[in-house]
């Protein structure tokens, strides 16, 4: 057994109400680590041979909750959620902050593999090795805040009742879905606390399709034994000391970017990316800080940054709206992207998105798309069930958000996510509206544009990513660049918050991995072999896709059309991405990661990595 792991996984078959434990070999854990890497391996092993036939929202799909060896040790606890994504039809490693991963490891499990589908709504309750599937009719339909309130109370009472000698029970950790997940909306999240979300991938819909409202866990054991505790303590200190110097992120979180990325780098979505520049000082972070933040430092297990902030609107129209920050992504997507430039309206919409269990990025992307179609007269007020979807009209957007979450009227169409919605509207209106969908392989682009050239993604970053528009998994050369997808796979596989490693030498994370697991890992080995293997499998499953769509690299390894239009305003006015240059860069990327000119992994690449089992799948891709 390797240090740092609890050693076993919980396997829950909801169709047959069967609970069991399973172990994965040391070699698998060494190669795939945990989180995203391990999810890729488990999905490939169990579903790979019929991947293209599996409907992501069918009982056959797996829903995975996986920690990594560094979860709980490395400052900033997270958990990785995965499965076959209803957005990309590939695999997305979607992580969410909170104590869930820590509690799970303390309960003795490295992860949970959920299969099947419950007959009626249920939640899973775990107290160490006591695991039960409990009835959840009374919380089905409840929003985020109600769900957390009810489950916290119910499960604490359960613990007090069963183990009265212990004293006061701390609350267990909870992962749950809101109404949007229950309704299998493709932009639904798996959430923790009120506001944290595993958004990319749409796993809230997968959880809803299994009729699984929540997973609640209390672990009373210690985190697993590590190889060298003294070294772990030193490394925690090294990371924290560095973070304590990072005043920008500590004080403002990523929230400082809502103004900055618009005004300075000009790479923020404004009115569905028609522009990427704004100079609206009404949206400055000082406005958030001084008007709406009631807690300036909010964080999760072991985090030195505590980049989250809590916002509460105390007066006027949106009084009572509560959310975190919002962070940069939601500031952008539920702010300028919708023509909204006040903290109050932004907090109001973010709060609604949280409450309904929607992803602010993916849903914000769909909302912007719909509003542009309204602006262009392609979608009429009638098409939108009477909603006047004008830029800046927060209440109109709120009305549409509710329709999406409950799949009412036009919401049914938009609930299918940006790609499917665009295709279907295009068919209905007999015109190409996909050109206005700012997405890559079904996943709306994160709020970092590529036209100005001043933000971190490269012009091929989204086009080549195995997680499409996911801004936390961008393709980049050289492969060991800190922005490279292969580098990012480590964060999502060892499972911790990568916001805590920006300032420290990159060797630190591998040192940390060694101190915890006892296994030596070099940057070269990671990039060239281990991460590369995960990348290839993710690529294969992404290209297999199915059953309702299949990506073709020659068409879909590309940017949304919008990025080829010149920026109409701001300091980089006129700048656009050059299509020929993108094609060249895409080819350069293919070559570097061992794909042929059609973007398909070469047999020799798979052979070198020991992925012979995947070679068969290549036939289906050619």
């Amino acid at each position, binding site marked *: 057994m390797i240090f740092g792991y609890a050693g076993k996984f919980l396997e829950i078959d909801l169709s047959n109400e069967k609970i069991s434990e399973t172990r994965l070999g040391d070699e698998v854990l060494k190669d795939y680590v945990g989180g995203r890497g391990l999810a890729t391996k488990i999905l490939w092993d169990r579903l790979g041979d019929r991947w293209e036939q599996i409907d992501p929202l069918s009982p056959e799909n797996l829903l995975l909750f996986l920690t990594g060896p560094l979860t*709980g*040790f490395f400052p900033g606890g997270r958990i990785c959620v995965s499965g076959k994504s209803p957005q990309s039809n590939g695999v997305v490693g979607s992580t969410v902050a909170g*104590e869930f991963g*820590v509690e799970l490891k*303390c309960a003795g499990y490295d992860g949970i593999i959920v299969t099947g589908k419950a007959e009626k709504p249920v939640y899973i309750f775990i107290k160490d090795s006591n695991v039960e599937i409990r009835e959840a009719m009374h919380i089905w339909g409840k929003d985020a*805040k109600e769900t*957390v*309130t009810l489950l*916290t109370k119910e499960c*604490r009472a359960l613990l007090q009742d069963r183990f009265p*000698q*212990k*004293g*006061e029970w*701390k*609350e267990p950790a909870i992962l749950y879905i809101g109404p949007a997940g229950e309704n299998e909306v493709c932009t639904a999240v798996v959430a923790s*606390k*009120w*506001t944290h979300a595993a958004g990319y991938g749409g796993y809230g819909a997968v959880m809803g399709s299994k009729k699984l409202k929540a997973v609640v866990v209390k*672990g*009373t*054991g*210690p*985190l697993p*034994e590590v190889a060298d*505790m003294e070294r772990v*303590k030193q490394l*925690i200190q090294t990371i*924290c000391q560095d973070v*304590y110097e990072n005043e920008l992120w500590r004080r403002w979180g990523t929230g400082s970017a809502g103004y900055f990325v618009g005004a300075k780098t000009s790479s923020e979505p404004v009115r569905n990316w028609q522009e990427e520049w704004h100079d609206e000082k009404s949206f400055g972070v000082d406005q958030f800080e001084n008007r709406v933040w*009631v*807690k300036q*430092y*909010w*964080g*999760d*297990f*072991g*985090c*030195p940054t*505590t980049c989250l902030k*809590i916002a*509460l609107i*105390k007066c006027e129209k949106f009084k*009572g709206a*509560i959310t975190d920050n919002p962070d940069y992504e939601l500031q952008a997507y539920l702010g300028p992207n919708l023509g909204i430039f006040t903290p109050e309206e932004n907090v109001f919409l973010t709060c609604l998105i949280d409450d309904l269990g929607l992803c602010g990025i993916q849903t914000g992307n769909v909302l912007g798309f719909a509003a542009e179609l309204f602006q262009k007269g392609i979608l009429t007020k009638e098409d939108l069930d009477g909603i006047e979807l004008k830029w800046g009209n927060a209440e109109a957007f709120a009305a549409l958000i509710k329709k999406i979450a409950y799949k009412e009227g036009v919401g049914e169409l938009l609930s299918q996510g940006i790609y499917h919605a665009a295709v279907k509207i295009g068919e209905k209106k007999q015109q190409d509206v996909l050109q206005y969908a700012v997405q890559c392989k079904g996943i709306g682009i994160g709020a970092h544009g590529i036209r100005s050239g001043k933000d971190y993604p490269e012009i091929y970053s989204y086009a080549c990513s195995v997680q499409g528009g996911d801004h936390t998994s961008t393709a980049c050369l050289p492969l060991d660049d800190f922005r490279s997808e292969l580098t990012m796979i480590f964060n999502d596989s060892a499972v911790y918050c990568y916001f805590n490693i920006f300032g420290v030498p990159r060797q630190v994370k591998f040192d940390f991995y060694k101190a915890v697991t006892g296994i030596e890992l070099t940057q070269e080995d990671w990039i060239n072999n281990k991460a590369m293997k995960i990348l290839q499998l993710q690529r294969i499953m992404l290209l297999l896709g199915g059953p309702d769509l299949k990506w073709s690299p020659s068409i879909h390894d590309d940017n949304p059309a919008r990025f080829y239009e010149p920026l109409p305003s701001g300091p980089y006015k006129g700048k656009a991405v050059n299509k020929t240059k993108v094609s060249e860069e895409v080819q350069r990327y293919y070559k570097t990661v061992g794909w042929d000119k059609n973007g398909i992994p070469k047999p020799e690449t798979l052979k070198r990595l020991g992925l012979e089992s995947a070679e068969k799948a290549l036939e289906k891709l050619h």
Partner: protein
Amino acid sequence: MVSKKRFIWIARDLSKCSGCRKCEIACSLWHENRIWPEASRIRVFMLVPGVEFPHLCAQCEDYPCVEACPVNALSISDETGAVLVDKTACIACGQCIDACPGRIPHMHPAENYILICDLCNGDPQCVKVCREGLWNVLQIVSRRDHSYKLYARKPEEITRNLVVKIYGEEGERFL
């Protein structure tokens, strides 16, 4: 009580707690050499998100827990004034929990004895990490003649107060 003045007390500004739980990590590393939130003598409760706060011994002037122990497993440190637990004498009966106005003591998750903050022999690790990160929820002050017992409150009571302080009237619906 001549020596009372050199005793320390951990002052606490609960509404500033970020919920980072570094205090739990530091405490369990110090006492158990493991990261073990449930074995931490200081515990962060989050009955409502955003309303996290550390729950730790208030060192009441009259030490009701020590009084209540039927087997004299609890004593008061001459050095620090902290409550000390004699692990071998403790019978895990839980009477100290009932005697504590804040129900702060809790059972060790793997062994049969009660956990109470021992002030780390006068150098509390939780305070160190909290101040290092400048959250300053916890702070060492010198112990004086004061009603420290007020700080021994149940997690629900503390939550009820903080939820209103942070969320105003909105807060009530989360209780």
